[in-house]
């Protein structure tokens, strides 16, 4: 029976999801904004690569990551040179969560940015704004509700990540065991009390997050642009 006082999966899960969400937010937005301004056949390939983790089963994603970060994988070797290893480590939980959450962030951000009238961006450019300023001051604020939705989806996906995490990070209690992994192994060990407890924790975290974001969007929404 698992230690009921071992709350480590909460912190591991939270750390992995929050970090992964921040990473996907930055990279997903950057990719979406960059993609917005480019068109062509090669861009379809770029889209495919970005969306692959969404369509592949998580175990396949985990397996690819294992190949990539394994001792003989291209990234694994690179990291090995500086004496670091990702497999079965805490960063692995972040990496897998980020990889599986990325497509959701990318898709929703792109949809949100596409909705922004390009005249606003063009007007900003003719007024001398750099691309960074166009993005930060015009595109992002106008796309914000959609970007926020993408962030929620990404966080939810990261929090629920199981398959790929198990492949790359394993289930080392106190180190890489996240809440979903703790639930799985609790059920496997026939420890229903722990399983139910972890499920309840997951529900509470999810609801608190959604509630918090709901209030925040209400405060941040287009209402502040002064309705007529």
């Amino acid at each position: 029976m698992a230690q009921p006082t071992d709350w480590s999966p909460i912190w591991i899960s939270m750390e992995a999801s929050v970090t992964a969400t921040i990473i996907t937010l930055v990279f997903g937005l950057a990719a979406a904004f960059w993609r917005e301004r480019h068109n062509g056949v090669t861009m379809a390939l770029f889209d495919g690569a970005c969306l692959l983790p969404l369509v592949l089963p998580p175990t396949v994603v985990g397996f690819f990551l294992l190949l990539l970060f394994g001792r003989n994988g291209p990234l694994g070797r690179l990291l090995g040179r500086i004496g670091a290893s990702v497999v079965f480590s805490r960063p692995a939980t972040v990496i897998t969560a980020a990889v599986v959450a990325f497509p959701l962030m990318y898709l929703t951000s792109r949809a949100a940015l596409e909705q922004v009238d390009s005249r606003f961006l063009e007007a900003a450019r003719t007024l001398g704004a750099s691309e960074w300023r166009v993005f930060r001051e015009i595109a992002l604020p106008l796309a914000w509700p959609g970007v926020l939705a993408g962030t929620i989806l990404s966080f939810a996906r990261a929090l629920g990540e199981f398959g790929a995490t198990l492949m790359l990070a394993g289930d080392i209690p106190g180190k890489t065991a996240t809440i979903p992994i703790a639930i799985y192994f609790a059920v496997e060990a026939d420890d229903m009390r722990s399983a139910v407890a972890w499920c309840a924790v997951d529900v509470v975290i999810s609801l608190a997050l959604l509630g918090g974001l709901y209030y925040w969007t209400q405060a941040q929404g287009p209402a502040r642009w002064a309705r007529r």
Partner: protein
Amino acid sequence: MPLEVHIEKTLAEFALDVAFQAEDEPLGILGPSGAGKTMLLRCIAGLEHPNRGRIALGGRILLDTGRGIRVPARKRRIGMLFQHYGLFPHRSVRDNVGFSLRQLPAAQRDRRLRLMLEQMHAAELEPRYPRQLSGGEQQRVALARALASDPEALLLDEPLSALDAHLRSQMEAQLQETFSSYRGPVLLVTHNFEEAYRLGAQLLVLSRGRIAAFGPREETFRRPPSVEVARLTGCKNISQARMVAENTIEAVQWGCRLRIAQRLAGPVGHVGIRAHHLDFADPAGGTEEQNVFACWLVRSSETPFRISLYLRLHRPPEQSGAYELQAEVFKEKWERFRHLPQPWRVKLSPEFLFVMPESGSMESA
């Protein structure tokens, strides 16, 4: 500071291919919708990339595809007023107008911002958001925003089309005021020939991506170089024509011979006369009078001060409602002859008739 433009760009239905030079005065760009007017402005502003071309403003080269130069929009220092203004909805008027002034010290920025808004008679709008502004107010703020960046050229895309008639004349006066104090080329796109005439000292007529006419507005309106330009500048009466003698032509659709004042050079393709230039001669006058023909009224349509008369030449109207000429007269004048027995006698004065070369010979001209 002249603006030299040479642009070639393939579009979906035709190619934009223009070359002209605009001086420090307003240039009206007139053309039907889909003629490439907006695309032309966007290419100059750097928002679209021509396939080939060269754009120079003063001494600065903004585009030279031959030498691989393409200055990005933000470095062109060209102000653009978009058709629906493109004010940032999440920024106040203050932040919109101050958008290009961020590098300035706060005090200086404030001063310039106030000056710009005052010039546009929009000082009281400073704390508001675009959503709280009327169409005319948005227009003034957008103009203040474009001018705040101190652009070396100003491009306006259909600046009046989104406004209702009353505001339009007000904004037109505002634009005229702005243009008169602005130093630099101003390009103004419109599909309304009256607007183009009132606002642009020079006129460029664009048709399917090509320049159909370019020059002083008076010249373009007095002697349109082609049927297309005649139509776009509002000419209602156009007939195919043949040269008969040195100063006489035969108008095919109108079925008559006409004396003309213009010296003919090259083959004649069409003849035209503007609706308000048609005159009605004394019904008792002799038939030998020049360019006077019998006509019957087919139908008429009224505007508040004028009336349009659709006329059948040489014979009474038929069921079909076909007509040859459209005349426009003030109602006071109309009242004087409306009750006179028909046929009336319409006069096509030689000095108002203009002939246009055959469309084939335009290309080489």
